[in-house]
């Protein structure tokens, strides 16, 4: 007879615990989804460019210039390249709002990354840097030492990529094995060190330096940079028609 009230109390207690777990869980997920803002470092945008050139995508005269310091073997860079970058390309680079430059920043702890950077730089000889860049990131799990520690010959995989992309494979292979672009890669890397890059991917958007962003955060930073440009432009340049006159010349 006394069992029923005890059972009821048990059920109440059970419902209470479940509600508490559900509340904590929903709150935690809500927190990570809403508080995912990147750490922002303000940098001096007037730092003159070093000897490094990076690899350009889009308009070199676009109002907002973005620099990415990336490592081909870094999983975060892989996520950025495969998940976020496609939207950035279609919505901001192809529309002429952003000019995007990739700077090599191979991290010493990644065993196969330098070969990957050479593979991409050599594809640039045949105007296929970005195609190789995308293929290397998409295939990261088959050549990365982090994922496949037994992988000691990433070059054979990159060679397959070169074939897939229709490169002149023997010219490309000669470029990679002679390490033709080592100095250029190191130049890009030195530019990152000079700019105090410590992690990859690091993005410099206007006067802000961030690590790994989602598309929405990237777009917000681009909008901020555009607003800064508008603010700092002289009044005459903002008057309607002033820009058009110049363009008509």
């Amino acid at each position, binding site marked *: 007879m006394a069992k029923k009230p005890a059972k009821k109390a*048990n*059920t109440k207690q*059970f419902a209470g*615990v*479940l509600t508490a*777990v*559900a509340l904590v*869980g*929903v709150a*935690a*997920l809500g927190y*990570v*989804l809403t508080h*995912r803002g*990147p750490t922002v470092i303000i940098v001096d945008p007037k730092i003159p460019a070093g000897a490094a050139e990076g690899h350009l995508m889009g308009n070199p005269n676009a109002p907002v210039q973005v620099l990415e310091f990336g490592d081909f073997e870094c*999983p*975060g860079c*892989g*996520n950025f390249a495969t*998940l*976020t970058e496609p939207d950035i390309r279609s919505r901001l680079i192809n529309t002429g709002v952003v000019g995007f430059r990739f700077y090599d920043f191979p991290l010493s702890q990644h065993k196969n990354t330098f070969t990957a950077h050479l593979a991409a730089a050599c594809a640039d000889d045949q105007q296929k840097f970005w195609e190789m860049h995308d293929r290397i990131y998409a295939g*990261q*799990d*088959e050549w*990365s030492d*982090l*994922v*496949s*520690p037994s992988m000691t010959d990433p070059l054979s995989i990159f060679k397959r990529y070169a074939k897939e992309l229709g490169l002149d494979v023997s010219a490309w292979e000669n470029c990679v094995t002679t390490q033709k672009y080592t100095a250029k890669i190191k130049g890009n890397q030195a530019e990152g060190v000079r700019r105090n890059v410590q992690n990859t991917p690091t993005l410099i958007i206007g006067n802000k330096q961030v690590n*790994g*962003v*989602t598309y929405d*955060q990237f777009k917000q930073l681009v909008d901020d940079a555009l607003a800064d440009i508008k603010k700092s432009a002289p009044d005459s340049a903002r008057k309607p028609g002033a820009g058009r006159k110049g363009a008509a010349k």
Partner: protein
Amino acid sequence: MTIAVLSLVGVFLATYLTLYKLGYVEALACGTGSCEVVQASRWSRLWGQPVAIWGAGFYLAMFVLSLAGSLGRLAGSRLVGIGLALMSACGVLFSGWLTFVEIAWLHAICRYCVTSAGLTVALFVLSIVDLRKPAEAD
């Protein structure tokens, strides 16, 4: 009842990993271990979908089944108990396989995956204990 609570914890854990894998969470809160290495590996997908989604489905099914076995008409049902034991056994086997991959092939440990493996083992043990209990008389 403990099975339902632990399953609910698992649902949130697996959902968090799924959100990361789908790009809604930019970085895993992972001070130690190598979560990103594990999450970037080829074993982080199964049949084209992130493993974490299958995990979320597994925990959700365990949660619903354990609720059914605790409340209402199916309360104390032996069939539900057997279902929970079988499902959690599959969970243990799959988690064991993933842990083996992490240790032997990836040389990287993800604390969330280890927690999930611990949860499935606990679910399995609890469901076996429940199954061995004599049925309660109303």
